[in-house]
């Protein structure tokens, strides 16, 4: 048609990769990893260290995805952290107090997560109250339930098989991390390839036009919250396998991280965007800092200070890079 419309896509693959939003994160992650490997004289690459690195990366990834799914429709889920703790406690209780076999208890944990998530979604749809408030309310409720399972005491020794799985390795990587990767791929495929996933994203990107195309925004909301809950359930199961002991404090560290990973990974709070890979990378970055702390005997205060500074630095670099590519365009 008109002469003007000839977007110069000639640059091709390489340029597109450089422009991809994940590029900065990949660079940062790689640099960080290599730098840390060198600085620890290769200690990071040794079996034990590397194993610990990836084992404790699993939950942050899954919980980040759990939040991301809800961010995709422009909402938030404040209950992800306590829900993870609740599902973990419930699973342990089923195994110890009820004597359920591990596979059944694990399935029950997952279902429990999904059900609580669905309740969140239904409450949002039925009451039309802001999801932030609804999930804040359910967060306090689930917090009470989590405590109710076993008071402040710790469950231990619920399932040797499950805990062995948590320590097992395959292909040189912890099984638990591989599970998280599989979950991430599944979430990625859901958003990229399924009708439900596309509809969900459309609802997030422009609810009104989604509605005009016959997409039910209400269904998208319930679906997103259900998946979010299910993923919290997955995180709970991973926690059970990973730690060998759980108590009512499990999940308390997850709320802020659940937001940090997707948002650093490039997900907009406004909805309509997902970044599975970015979320995983952001979780990876945060994990790098944990490890650096242990390796270099850094005080927690310094670590917090450094993490803050690094993230601020990263956003600055990202912004500058974006400005450069835009002006070159």
């Amino acid at each position: 048609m008109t002469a003007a419309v000839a977007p110069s896509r000639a640059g091709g693959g390489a340029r597109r990769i450089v422009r991809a939003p994940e590029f900065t994160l990949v660079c940062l992650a790689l640099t960080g990893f290599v730098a840390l490997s060198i600085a620890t004289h290769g200690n990071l690459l040794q079996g034990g260290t590397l194993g610990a690195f990836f084992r404790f990366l699993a939950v942050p990834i899954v919980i980040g995805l759990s939040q991301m799914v809800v961010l995709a429709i422009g909402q938030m889920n404040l209950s992800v952290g306590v829900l993870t703790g609740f599902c973990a406690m419930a699973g342990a209780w089923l195994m110890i107090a009820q004597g359920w076999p591990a596979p059944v208890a694990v399935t029950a944990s997952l279902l429990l997560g999904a059900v609580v998530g669905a309740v969140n979604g239904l409450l949002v749809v039925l009451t039309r109250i802001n999801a932030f408030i609804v999930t804040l309310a359910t967060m306090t409720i689930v917090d009470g339930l989590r405590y109710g399972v076993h008071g402040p005491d710790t469950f231990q020794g619920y399932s040797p098989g499950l805990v062995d799985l948590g320590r097992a390795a395959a292909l040189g990587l912890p099984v638990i991390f591989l599970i998280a990767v599989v979950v991430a791929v599944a979430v990625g495929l859901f958003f990229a390839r399924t009708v439900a996933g596309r509809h969900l994203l459309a609802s997030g990107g422009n609810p009104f036009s989604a509605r005009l195309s016959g997409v039910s925004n209400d269904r998208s909301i319930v679906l997103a919250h259900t998946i979010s809950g299910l993923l919290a359930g997955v995180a709970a199961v991973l926690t059970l396998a990973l730690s060998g002991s759980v108590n009512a404090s499990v999940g308390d560290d997850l709320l802020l991280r659940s937001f940090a990973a997707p948002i650093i990974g490039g997900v907009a709070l406004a909805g309509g965007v997902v970044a599975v890979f970015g979320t995983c990378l952001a979780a990876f970055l945060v994990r790098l800092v944990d490890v650096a702390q242990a390796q270099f005997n850094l005080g927690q205060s310094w670590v917090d200070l450094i993490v803050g500074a690094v993230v601020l630095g990263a956003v600055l670099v990202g912004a500058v890079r974006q400005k450069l590519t835009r002006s070159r365009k």
Partner: protein
Amino acid sequence: MNRLGRAGNAPPPSSDAQASGPAPDPAPPAGRVGRMPVWANPRIGLLAVLVVLIVLFTSLRPTFLDTRLTLVPLQSDVSVYLVVGLSQLAVLSLGHMNMAVPRIAAISAFAAGLLYDKTGAPLPLDLLAGLATGAALGALAGLVIARTGVNSFVVTLAMDFALVGLVSLLYSHFTQGVAFARQPAGMASLGADTMADYCTGDVCGPPIPLLVPFAVVALLVVGLVFRWSRIGREILMTGSNQKAAELSGIPVQARIIQAHALSGALAAFAGFLLAAENGAFSASVGGQFLLPSFLAPVLGGTLLAGGAVSVLGTLLGAGITQVIYKGLNLLQFQINQLQLYIGLVLLAALSLDRARHVLAERRGVRA
């Protein structure tokens, strides 16, 4: 940000929802122009919820109206959390978030404590030092956000992280651990006394904590800023549509920085009030501020999307949360039940407000 949640909601409450006087109607369209009935005002719904809760708790526990043990501490808590909420509200007006509210409060309290510790400056000066620190930190966050265009959540979260570390480093460097040993004169009275403790002859003041007037000043200032000041309005316009604001000649970068500075100053103020209430400038000041900072304004009808704020709503939001908490505590629930009921009462209270809203919408349409 909660676009879907908003889809069925009323027009966003804006601070001028109650603008007075009948407006001229230059081009009367077909049909009648309905005026919003008083009960359709979202603030009324919250007020009703608040009254219902108070009546409910009073009938269950008459001591809810005990002045000394219930009402006075309740007022102090509402004062502190009102200012905490206003601090978040200042950036919600832009559609931004300030995740650093807790630590800005902490570090500002540190600044105030340090000034007193080193120079013995009187309380008002210490307060000013705290406010200046908070405003400066807020402005810094605003500057980064405005210049890079990076999400405020990320920037302020990173800032919070950096400050967490800094707070504990500073306290361990400047104090014997975690708090200043000496507090400025008057701070203890400020936190603990009520006006009833001060008398002219036989006439004593009402049983209102001394913290309350401070919070009222903050409320008025923020109300003034967003309701009548040009800068406040331009901040709201920026929050409503940044692109259009820029194309309307609003210096959006400056407005972003100012809103964040206001947020920082209010966080510092909240930290100061909490330190007074609890009796010391310590590292733990502000540690629990994050969720309440969102709860009060969002409950009060401020959107996370920006462009509209409700200052009075924030007061009601803070009031409702504290009343729920106080009432349930009086009912002596154990911790797990307490959590459960807080959530349930919150949902029930909001659903009540929703019912009013749905009614208003229906009436509005059929008027």
